[in-house]
């Protein structure tokens, strides 16, 4: 046993984040901790890593009871954590980042030769290929994560905690990461993986703890469980699988013809032609940053395209104002709920009103009607079961999932023929995700045309009737439900082609 946590309890104000949690890790083992957002899995790992102090309970590492005041204390006994958000110096090299805080010195200067050599050795020992002299700013996300891992290995960590490591990776990078994790375990390191992606859990773990509402509700050997059981344990009730009726597509409600966008001489969108018919959900699959955001902004009027046309319900709305495009029959769940989709400092009422500020009965002749706005907010809150204490509380006081539900409720209640859903369930728990997915399917069955953009391939695959794959601003493939598996999609998403494989 490399570490053991006994009866850990941690409360924030009135919220019990960890309630009598006990767990342990064996040498060379890959342990997963799964649970919905807010289940307490991050808190327990923050306690182990010295970022938080428990109210009560005991941490035993290497046979001795430990008391960590900060991460350095944890690091000193061999515990390292790969954070979700990387902390690297963009303008410095890989090697410099890895030795940061423990530099190899030659007198007052840094011994660059020895540094590079040492980094190279570690990299080879753990088969984590990197170029020690590459600049971080030139490294893709997958490599950056590798640097983070090497940083921890350089500090002689024996226990490595991964916090949602695959959240930012492409499908191919995820495969590489999982292989890395297996390799580390083979090399004798002990691994803790915090995640809510159950496929990954099943792919690498030896053992799994399931957490729910601050407690450990189950412990399973990976070989003796499956995704369905884990999901059920996480949510606390059996998951409804979506029963999706075959689509009854009607007329085309949303269409782009040869849409282009050039930014600073760079072609961000090239000749995008797509259409979404009434009664279907069309997904856009792609690795983030391949033009999805720009495409949606051009369609919704947030950005001016440099060529091509956009049609909403048959009306040419190319480069019209957001107002005109919304009036043509489009609603838009934006990709980032706090950047575009809401005013965190505004009240729920103010956030509920957005897009209807000039509409009766909410305003008439420029005068707003507080009563009607209150009613609207309450209706949206009830309709989507948003957990809120009052319609006058601030948006930022809601949890991420509830804020998202309010935004989804607002846009869906506009009841437009065309609905654009960007990352509709990013970073929210399974319960809220299910609710949002069901509403999307319901809207589809009611004859709405839904365009879905998501970096979660599973979300795209499970909801879409048709899928476009986008890569570097181009549509590189179009498939209908069931005609494509995620491996092929993943390949297209990173610029591969199917033809060559055959």
């Amino acid at each position, binding site marked *: 046993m490399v570490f053991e946590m006994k009866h850990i309890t941690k409360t924030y104000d009135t919220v019990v984040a960890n309630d009598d949690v006990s767990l342990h890790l064996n040498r060379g083992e890959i342990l997963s901790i799964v649970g919905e957002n807010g289940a307490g899995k991050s808190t327990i790992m923050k306690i182990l890593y010295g970022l938080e102090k428990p109210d009560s309970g005991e941490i035993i590492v290497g046979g001795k009871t430990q008391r960590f005041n900060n991460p350095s204390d944890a690091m000193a006994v061999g515990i390292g954590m790969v954070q979700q958000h990387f902390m690297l110096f963009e303008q410095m090299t890989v090697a410099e980042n890895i030795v940061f805080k423990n530099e190899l010195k030659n007198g007052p200067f840094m011994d660059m030769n020895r540094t590079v050599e040492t980094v190279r050795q570690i990299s080879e020992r753990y088969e984590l290929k990197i170029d020690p002299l590459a600049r971080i700013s030139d490294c893709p996300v997958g490599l950056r994560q590798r640097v983070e891992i090497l940083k921890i290995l350089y500090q002689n960590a024996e226990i490595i905690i991964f916090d949602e490591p695959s959240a930012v990776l492409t499908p191919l990078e995820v495969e590489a990461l999982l292989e890395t994790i297996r390799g580390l375990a083979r090399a004798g390191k002990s691994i803790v993986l915090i995640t809510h992606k159950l496929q990954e859990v099943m792919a690498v773990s030896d053992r799994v703890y399931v957490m729910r509402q601050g407690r450990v509700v189950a412990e399973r050997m990976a070989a003796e469980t499956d995704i369905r059981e884990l999901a059920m344990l996480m949510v606390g009730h059996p998951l409804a699988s979506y029963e999706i009726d075959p689509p009854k597509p009607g007329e085309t409600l949303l269409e782009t013809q040869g849409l282009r966008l050039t*930014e*600073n001489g760079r072609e961000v969108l090239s000749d995008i032609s797509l259409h979404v018919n009434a009664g279907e959900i069309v997904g856009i699959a792609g690795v983030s940053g391949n033009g999805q955001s*720009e495409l949606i*902004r051009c369609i*919704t009027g*947030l*950005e001016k395209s440099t060529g091509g046309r956009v049609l909403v319900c048959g009306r040419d709305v190319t480069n019209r*104002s*957001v*107002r005109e495009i*919304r009036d043509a029959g489009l609603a*838009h769940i*934006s990709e980032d709920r706090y*950047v*575009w*989709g*809401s*005013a*965190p*400092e*505004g009240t729920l009422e*103010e956030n509920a*009103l*957005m*897009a209807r*500020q*000039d509409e009766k009965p909410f*305003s008439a002749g*420029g*005068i*707003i009607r507080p009563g009607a706005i209150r009613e609207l907010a309450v209706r949206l809150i009830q309709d989507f079961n948003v957990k809120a*204490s*009052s319609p*006058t*509380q601030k948006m930022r006081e809601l949890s991420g999932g509830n804020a998202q539900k309010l935004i989804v409720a607002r846009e869906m209640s506009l009841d437009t023929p065309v609905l654009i859903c960007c990352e509709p369930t990013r970073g929210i728990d399974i319960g809220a995700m299910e609710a949002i997915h069901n509403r999307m399917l319901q809207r589809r069955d009611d004859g709405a045309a839904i365009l879905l953009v998501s970096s979660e391939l599973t979300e795209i695959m499970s909801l879409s009737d048709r899928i476009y794959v986008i890569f570097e601003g181009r549509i590189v493939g179009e498939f209908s439900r069931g005609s494509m598996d995620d491996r092929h999609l993943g390949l297209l998403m990173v610029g591969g082609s199917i033809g060559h494989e055959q």
Partner: protein
Amino acid sequence: MNNERNWRRTLLGIVDTVTQPLIAVLISFLLGAVVILVIGKNPLLAYGEMIRGAFGKQVYLMNTLKRATPIIMGGLAVCMAWRSGYEAMGGEGQMILGAVAAALVGYYLPVPGWLRILAAMLAAAAAGALYSMFSGWLYDRFDVTFVISTLMLNYIANYFAAYLCNYPLRDPEANVYQMQNAQTGKLPADVALPPIMKGWVHWGFVIAVAAVLVTWFLFKKTSFGYKSRMGGLNPRFALYGGIDARKMLYLVLALSGVMAGLGGSFEVLGSKSRYVDQMIFSTGYAWTGMVAALLANMNPIGTLLASILLAGLAVGGSTMMLNMDIPLEVCNIIEGIITLFMSARMIRIAQGNIRRRRRAKGGEAA
């Protein structure tokens, strides 16, 4: 129960917003007291004199309200713009041009007295609005930040006005040998905002209070108020919700300029009967107005109260100086400290705004 919680929330919110300004004012007066002690006077007596000199007699009170009038208007100009996230500081320039426009129209327009007053105020409002919108255009077209453009435009307005009253519009009856600031011709006696009644403050103050109420109404009860607030809270969200950012930019800045411009016209029509070189610049009305708006956290009614307080500080300070031989600078110190405290907050607000707006404007590229 839910209602009760709402009440508590509102109450807590009010306490929260009022605490910081109150503490700022309190500390400023305490530090002022230390200064008074150092020069060997009794601070309690001094402050007693100050309060008496500001509010103690009808004459004093009216003096305070008169001085408060342009400050209120300058404060409203700030409320208007800053609430929407435009940290414009051009109130001074707009007020100067407003004053000049009022002085010009009041002097030259050949229509009966009351119509001339109205025309002078309209001209002042228009001058302020256009000048304010010009800074908006610089931002819209060339990305010039408001802090820079408005501060520079203030100087331009002041020296342009100085040129006008020194050369083409110089009062023909002015004594060339007299050592005084240049000025435009004196308005006829019937072209003036009269006192509300004998011995009272002029009507400009009433219009200023009305402007406070109008602003409050705009903020709280109109869709314009909603749009401008959303634009200030999160410009990207406003854009996403179909609010025309450009239209709001010009509308908000125009209204802000109207307030400042009118403030300038009240000074001319209600007090000086002409434009005197430096009359707005040296008194710092617009800046005091900004302090008032900051003290009130951009609440129009709070701005009214804070403006009267700050005007009282200056008016009462003169009495204190006369009766107790305490230099007027003590008042400047107090106002300075208040400003310092409130500007700490100003920087925070401005930083937030710039960050949010840069994201909104650069949003397409980000």
